[in-house]
């Protein structure tokens, strides 16, 4: 067999020709997973590999590039999805298939469909939420609108004093939270233990989970736990969409307040926590206001106690006044009744006195110095004495008429 070799350049030209014939000016939408990203942010281009896997086996792998004129699509994607453009992302990409004699086959990425990714994220998120509810019925319940977790049902103590904070070291979130609490206008004093951890990037959810376990193991009686994040990438919230972390938060026996700086969405961690606020500062403000409410209630109660106490004293005073007047009145009544009785007795005595009787024309008859009350005891010729009011007469009975 006779070989007619051609030069590599010729071969490359031939390949180029063949590829161009099929693909030139015909961008194609392709679904692929990102891998091996080399992003030159200062030079505005990015090399990456696009792969497809069947389970863990790679079934296709093509080199790709995002050139300077399409470089803005990375930023657009991150803003739309709130996800960091990174490896292991399943994307729908618009690509041009190109071939260069020097650099070989490359897919030139022209666009990334954010809605495809958002849809996937939403599906994934729904799947995680569904699994959380289905596999942990004693910890998480869903009524079609709200998630009810053990953590959510814990009541926030009326006074929050001891706080555990999970956050990234030297982050804005850490600074904002601590600053707000330490400079509170009411001079509340907080005892704050910091559980510092990586809060974004690979392994973040495991690190946060580990810190939750450390808090549980510390056996410290924290009033609340704050998971706060601020100042980092606005696109990497994946740690807070993690099943294991979400479950740990849902089941945690101390109220967890999240402030993870997610401006648009509510993460799964937020849904499972006792209370989800937007920023670390808002978490701190919430804690301070919680204590303010208690202080105000306390003052209000104190004030009411004093008010009602004065009222009781006033009541006692008027009761005493009544008693005093009752005492005076009753005593007066008794004395005047007694006086009246005495008057009556006196009058009766007066009326019954012999002088009074004699004055009315009666006379007293005596015989042998005894008052005669029965005429039958008197006989004719008896000597008797008759006493008038002014006169005393001795007499002899001359006749008895019977």
């Amino acid at each position, binding site marked *: 067999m006779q070989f007619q070799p051609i030069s590599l350049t010729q071969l490359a030209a031939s390949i180029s020709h063949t590829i161009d014939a099929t693909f030139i000016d015909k961008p194609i939408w392709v679904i692929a997973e990102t891998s091996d990203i080399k992003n030159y942010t200062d030079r505005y281009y990015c090399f990456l590999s696009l792969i497809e896997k069947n389970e863990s086996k790679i079934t296709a792998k093509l080199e790709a590039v995002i050139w300077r004129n399409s470089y803005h699509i990375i930023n657009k994607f991150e803003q739309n999805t709130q996800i960091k453009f990174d490896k292991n992302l399943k994307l729908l990409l618009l690509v041009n298939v190109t071939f260069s004699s020097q650099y070989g086959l490359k897919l030139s990425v022209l666009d990334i469909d954010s809605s495809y990714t958002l849809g996937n994220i939403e599906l994934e998120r729904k799947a995680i939420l569904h699994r959380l509810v289905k596999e942990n019925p004693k910890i998480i319940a869903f009524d079609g609108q709200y998630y009810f977790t053990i953590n959510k049902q814990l009541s926030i103590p009326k006074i929050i004093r001891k706080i555990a904070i999970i956050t990234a070291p030297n982050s804005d979130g850490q600074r904002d939270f601590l600053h707000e609490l330490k400079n509170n206008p009411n001079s509340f004093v907080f005892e704050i233990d910091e559980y510092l951890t990586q809060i974004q990037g690979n392994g973040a959810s495991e690190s946060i989970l580990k810190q939750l376990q450390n808090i549980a193991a510390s056996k410290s009686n924290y009033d609340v736990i704050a998971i706060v994040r601020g100042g980092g990438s606005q696109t990497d919230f994946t740690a807070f969409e993690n099943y294991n972390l979400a479950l740990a938060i849902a089941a945690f026996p101390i109220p967890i307040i999240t402030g993870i700086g997610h401006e648009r969405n509510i993460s799964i961690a937020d849904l499972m926590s006792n209370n989800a606020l937007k920023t670390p500062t808002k978490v701190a403000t919430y804690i301070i206001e919680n204590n303010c409410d208690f202080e105000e209630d306390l003052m209000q109660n104190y004030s009411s106690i004093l008010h009602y*106490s004065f009222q009781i004293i006033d009541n*006692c005073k008027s009761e005493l006044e009544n008693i005093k007047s009752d005492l005076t009145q009753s005593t007066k009544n008794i004395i005047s009744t*007694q006086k009246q009785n005495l008057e009556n007795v006196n009058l009766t005595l007066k009326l019954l006195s012999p002088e009074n009787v004699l004055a009315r024309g009666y006379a007293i008859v005596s015989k042998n110095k005894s008052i005669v009350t029965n005429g039958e005891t008197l006989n004719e010729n008896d000597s008797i004495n008759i006493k008038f009011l002014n006169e005393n007469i001795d007499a002899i009975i001359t006749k008895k008429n019977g």
Partner: protein
Amino acid sequence: MAKKITYQQANDELNNIVEELQNNMVTIDIISQKLERAKALVEICYQTLKGTEEKLSESIKHLESLK
């Protein structure tokens, strides 16, 4: 004995005396005795009220200083 008596006890006793007087259960012989007792009880009550009122006023001042 007078010092140990509470406001409520003093008040109850006063009310009893009033009731006895109103129902003619007190003879003239002991009426002045009862009145003396009542006077002492009223005194105790007023003293207690005064003391409580002073303490409350202090508390009000304290509350104002907190606000």
